């Protein structure tokens, strides 16, 4: 009857409570699917995703990110909504969710809905409530914008299958990188229950692709693919373990994205680590950088880290760090090197690498040309040649290049008062908080954060 009790609140109060409860979810992306409007409803979807605003923490606001309810029967130690916490509770009705989504979408505030939920009564019961809301939104309101829902582990596979036909993206939180961590901090959740529906969605997407070949108008199942997220820094995993888990998720479960969420201290619990420096933002940043390397740059987790060197470098981004330890591959000749090798040069991203490969078909490239076509040479210059010459007289030597690069100051995206640069000390930065670089900027721009 908790559900009834919370109905007395106004829509404004509910929105506040259920937004506040949803804000720790990382994914707010609206990307992965291109869909024109049908002409009889409202909405479309753009593959790159669209950011509609940015909140005070600099994160992109793309979707109306809310919980259906923050009532929960579970007691996960890291979660603000755990049953043993005394926080104001509320629940939306399906109609209220439709009203907010349509009202916001019409005014171009948002790109769609991201609906997650605490667990009311049972996983299946909660998923049915979510289904009702989404069904109404899609059929009665003819909403054709982006919808992302969280599937709740342990829910009936049938309801996941039904819901998958209505939404663009479904995700299941891995919560913590390893099964041991999960056992310690989320006693009601089991690794197996999380991986089973993940596999179900993966198979559903595959089968759906076959159906689409046969019947062009077959309904699409989770068209934008599935993603997951895990909390970083709440348990003792190394970066190496985390990257291996991500790699497996990409390879074996065909995930579109893995999100990393720096642990934010919201509950006092003896099982939780103390984090005096605030959330480990630098670590989160390094993991995103490495994640990018896995997905777009052809790197493998084993190249970036190892048992002996299980954590990322505080001072250098993972690609730079790799290059410094593998100087035997450098310098790379811009006019001849294969695309894959150009991608491995620190400071050269996917777009620059593509431009270089295209532009050199039209004639030999010089450093002047590289600058003109927008390649940033600040870091790259230590690793490349044009027509056999380096830009300046530099040594290909780990110590020398490291010193030069340290002088450049990596641009990191965070710190309490925005972009500040601290002196390099002999000790690891407590916050281990890196700033976002241009890649992250682009990510945020395309709504992929």
């Amino acid at each position: 009857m908790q559900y009834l009790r919370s109905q007395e609140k106004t829509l404004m109060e509910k929105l506040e409570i259920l937004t506040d409860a949803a804000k720790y979810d990382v994914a707010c992306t609206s990307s992965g699917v291109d869909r024109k409007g049908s002409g009889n409803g409202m909405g479309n979807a753009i593959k790159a995703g669209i950011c509609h605003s940015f909140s005070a923490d600099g994160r992109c606001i793309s979707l109306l990110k809310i919980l259906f309810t923050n009532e929960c029967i579970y007691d996960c130690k890291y979660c603000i909504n755990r049953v043993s916490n005394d926080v104001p509770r509320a629940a939306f009705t399906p109609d209220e969710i439709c009203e907010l989504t349509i009202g916001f979408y019409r005014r171009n505030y948002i790109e769609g809905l991201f609906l997650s939920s605490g667990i009311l009564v049972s996983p299946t019961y909660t998923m049915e409530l979510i289904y009702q809301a989404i069904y109404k939104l899609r059929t009665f309101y003819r909403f054709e914008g982006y919808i992302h829902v969280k599937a709740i582990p342990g829910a009936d596979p049938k309801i996941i299958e039904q819901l998958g036909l209505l939404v663009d993206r479904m995700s299941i939180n891995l919560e913590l990188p390893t099964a041991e961590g999960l056992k310690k901090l989320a006693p009601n959740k089991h690794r197996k229950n999380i991986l089973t529906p993940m596999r179900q969605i993966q198979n559903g997407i595959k089968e759906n692709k076959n159906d689409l070949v046969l019947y062009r108008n077959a309904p699409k199942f989770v068209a934008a693919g599935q993603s997951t997220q895990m909390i970083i820094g709440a348990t003792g995993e190394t970066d190496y373990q985390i990257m291996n888990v991500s790699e497996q998720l990409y390879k074996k479960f065909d995930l579109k994205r893995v999100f990393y969420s720096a642990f934010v201290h919201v509950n006092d619990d003896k099982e939780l680590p103390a984090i005096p420096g605030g959330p480990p933002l630098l670590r989160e940043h390094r993991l995103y950088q490495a994640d990018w390397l896995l997905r777009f740059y052809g790197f493998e987790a084993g190249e970036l880290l190892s048992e002996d060197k299980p954590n990322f470098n505080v001072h250098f981004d993972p690609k730079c760090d790799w290059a410094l330890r593998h100087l035997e591959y450098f310098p790379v000749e811009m006019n001849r090197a294969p695309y894959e090798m150009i991608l491995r040069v620190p400071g050269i991203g996917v777009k620059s690498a593509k431009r270089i490969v295209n532009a050199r078909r039209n004639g030999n490239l010089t450093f002047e040309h590289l600058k003109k076509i927008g390649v940033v040479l600040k870091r790259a210059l230590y690793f490349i040649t044009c027509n056999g010459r380096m830009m300046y007289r530099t040594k290909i030597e780990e110590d020398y290049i490291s010193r030069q690069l340290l002088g450049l100051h990596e641009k990191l995206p965070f710190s309490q008062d925005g972009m500040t640069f601290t002196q390099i000390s002999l000790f690891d930065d407590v916050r281990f908080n890196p700033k976002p670089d241009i890649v992250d900027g682009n990510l945020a721009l395309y709504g992929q954060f």
Partner: protein
Amino acid sequence: MQTILVCEDSFEGILTGIYEAYERKLSHDDVIIETGGEENFRLFSEYIEIKADEEKAVKVSRSLRRMLGDEVVYDLHNALASEDTERGNAVYHTVVEALNGKGRNVMSYLQNDSVRKVFELSRNVWVEIHHMYGFLRFEELEGGILYAAIAPKNNIISRLMPHFSDRFPLENFVIYDEKRDIYAIHPAKGQWFLVREQDMDDRTEVRVSEGEGRMQELFKSFVRTIAIESRTNEKLQLNMLPLRFRPYMTEFR
């Protein structure tokens, strides 16, 4: 001797200029397209005024699409939507490079200054279009019409309309470019069109609808609540969402 074609500062004007440049069969290296304005006059040059001609512009546009494909034309159109004074000449010389053999791959020929200029302008305009897709805000007026005001750096209103028309086919909506005094109007289930301010007769004050205030309050509350305090980073917010957009955005008013 150089020939300088002085065109009207508009999409049609520049395309007409390109038409004339080919029509006159001059050496392309010696032709410069300029758009109006008080340029410094050059010595030993012939200045020719070109009047914009819609028919010629359409011809050029159509043959470019046929010969170079949608992707190249997309970049050219983007570049023309900018208000850079050199865009006409850059687009013209990019077309020359394309028709002299680079063909559909012309946009990868970034060693060439004109191509690079078009590339940069196009990217710049694209970024602004993409920003506007997200940052534009509608208000509901009495009668259910949606209204949005914008002040973009580039002349992109006609490039925004296909997106919003596809998104809101059943809505009556208006987008107003304050800087250029252009209205784009989309009637429900209909085709959108542009209207210049001087063509609008007797404008009456319109009020927002009854439910508008409540929806705006709800959204403001959402934006406030979604931020995580321990990650506050206004500098990053500023980088991602520059101040120039904010006066037009509900949540920052």
